[in-house]
């Protein structure tokens, strides 16, 4: 499969990339690792006229501590996130989540910013960011705005990013002692989650239970009110309208959410 023809520009800086996005308009797409965009282009589900490559901008790559947050450059590949000592120590849920994306080759190329911008509701990192209560630094020509994870994902493969903006960095709180659990139900080793659950302390996020990653609010409230893990987990699918596909119908997804939330909560230590 071969993408439709396009022009390619390797951006020299984020400023250059923003200028290009501004002048080229909505027909231009940012390319980093390309592991969400290129498959869509090969299937002709996407046919941008220009790709602006930001994948090799060192200013967008890397992981650092900043006060009580970890700041991750948008073009940081999953493999770097999964093996980072800082992330493993202070945000182990995120390191684990990055290590569950696809397979090793995919983790060498795919980036956190790309995964979040793609906003697949079945993906690992959007769910992890929602569970962690992280945020996204969105860079536009007028400066940076910070968007909370819960406000970033607005619909099925849709985010609050404007066409002339890019993700500069991703922020997650440092919580080295927090108990966390991670569950991902798949049919094949390197698949997307049929249903996924990320839990940290009393926060629970669900993947593939709706058009965006969701909080399991009813279960969270029950936990906060002193309910047992088993009783809280029974409420995991409350208020969700999961889609149906060849892997699972709606009832089965709701069943999976209840079972996986219980397992994720039991995993916390």
């Amino acid at each position, binding site marked *: 499969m071969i993408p439709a023809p396009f022009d390619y520009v390797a951006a020299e800086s984020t400023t250059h990339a923003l200028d290009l996005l501004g002048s080229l308009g909505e027909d231009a797409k940012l390319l980093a690792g390309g592991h969400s965009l290129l498959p869509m282009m090969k299937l002709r589900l996407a046919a941008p006229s220009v*790709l602006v490559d930001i994948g090799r901008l060192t200013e967008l790559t890397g992981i650092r501590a900043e006060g009580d947050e970890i700041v991750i450059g948008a073009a940081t590949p999953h493999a770097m996130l999964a093996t980072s000592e800082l992330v493993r120590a202070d945000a182990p849920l995120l390191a684990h989540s990055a290590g569950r994306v696809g397979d*090793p*080759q995919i983790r060498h190329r795919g980036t956190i910013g790309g995964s979040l911008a793609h906003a697949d509701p079945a993906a690992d990192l959007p769910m992890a960011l929602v569970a962690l209560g992280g945020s996204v630094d969105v860079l536009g020509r007028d400066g940076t705005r910070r968007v909370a994870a819960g406000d970033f994902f607005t619909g099925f493969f849709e985010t609050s990013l404007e066409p002339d903006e890019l993700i500069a960095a991703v922020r997650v709180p440092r919580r080295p002692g927090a108990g966390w659990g991670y569950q991902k139900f798949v049919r094949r080793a390197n698949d997307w989650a049929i249903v996924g659950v990320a839990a940290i302390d009393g926060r629970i996020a669900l993947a593939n239970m709706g058009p965006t990653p969701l909080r399991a609010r009813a279960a969270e409230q029950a936990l906060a009110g002193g309910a047992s893990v088993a009783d809280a987990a029974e409420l995991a699918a409350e208020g969700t309208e999961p889609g149906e596909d060849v892997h699972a119908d709606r009832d089965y997804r709701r069943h999976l959410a209840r079972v996986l939330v219980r397992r994720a909560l039991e995993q916390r230590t």
Partner: protein
Amino acid sequence: MQVELTVNGQQRSDEVEPRLLLVHYLREVCGLRAANVGCDTTSCGACTVLLNGTSVKSCTVLAVQASGQQVTTAEGLAADDGLHPVQAAFRQEHGLQCGFCTPGMVMAAVGLLSENPDPTEAEVREGLEGNFCRCTGYHNIVRAVLAAAKAARDEQAEVGA
């Protein structure tokens, strides 16, 4: 547009369309046919090559993205007619049947061992989860990777002794 790559140690400069995939560049422009196009959807790993030493699926990388970088295919693993230790181990342990997945499997294994020279069996199985084999049931492939790791360690020990 013009790309400048080092492929199996040789510097190249070629004029390509931006949409040319790295696997097609390797097969059709460079004439290197080891990397196979299998699923063409980033799943099966038959097109795995090393990009600056790390394993990638070349059906999901543009040739222009690889410009300025080093690509290694199965053809470039060993000097002349010899076998790379991982290739030798695949032959020794019969880690293949039809052979279609083998170049990608070998490259993924070389990448895995460069990151983890002493993997457990479970780590080998997880490390190769991006490569599908429809013939072998994986057992001899895993054995081959473990044997290659052991051979490399034994050689290290001998050099050190």
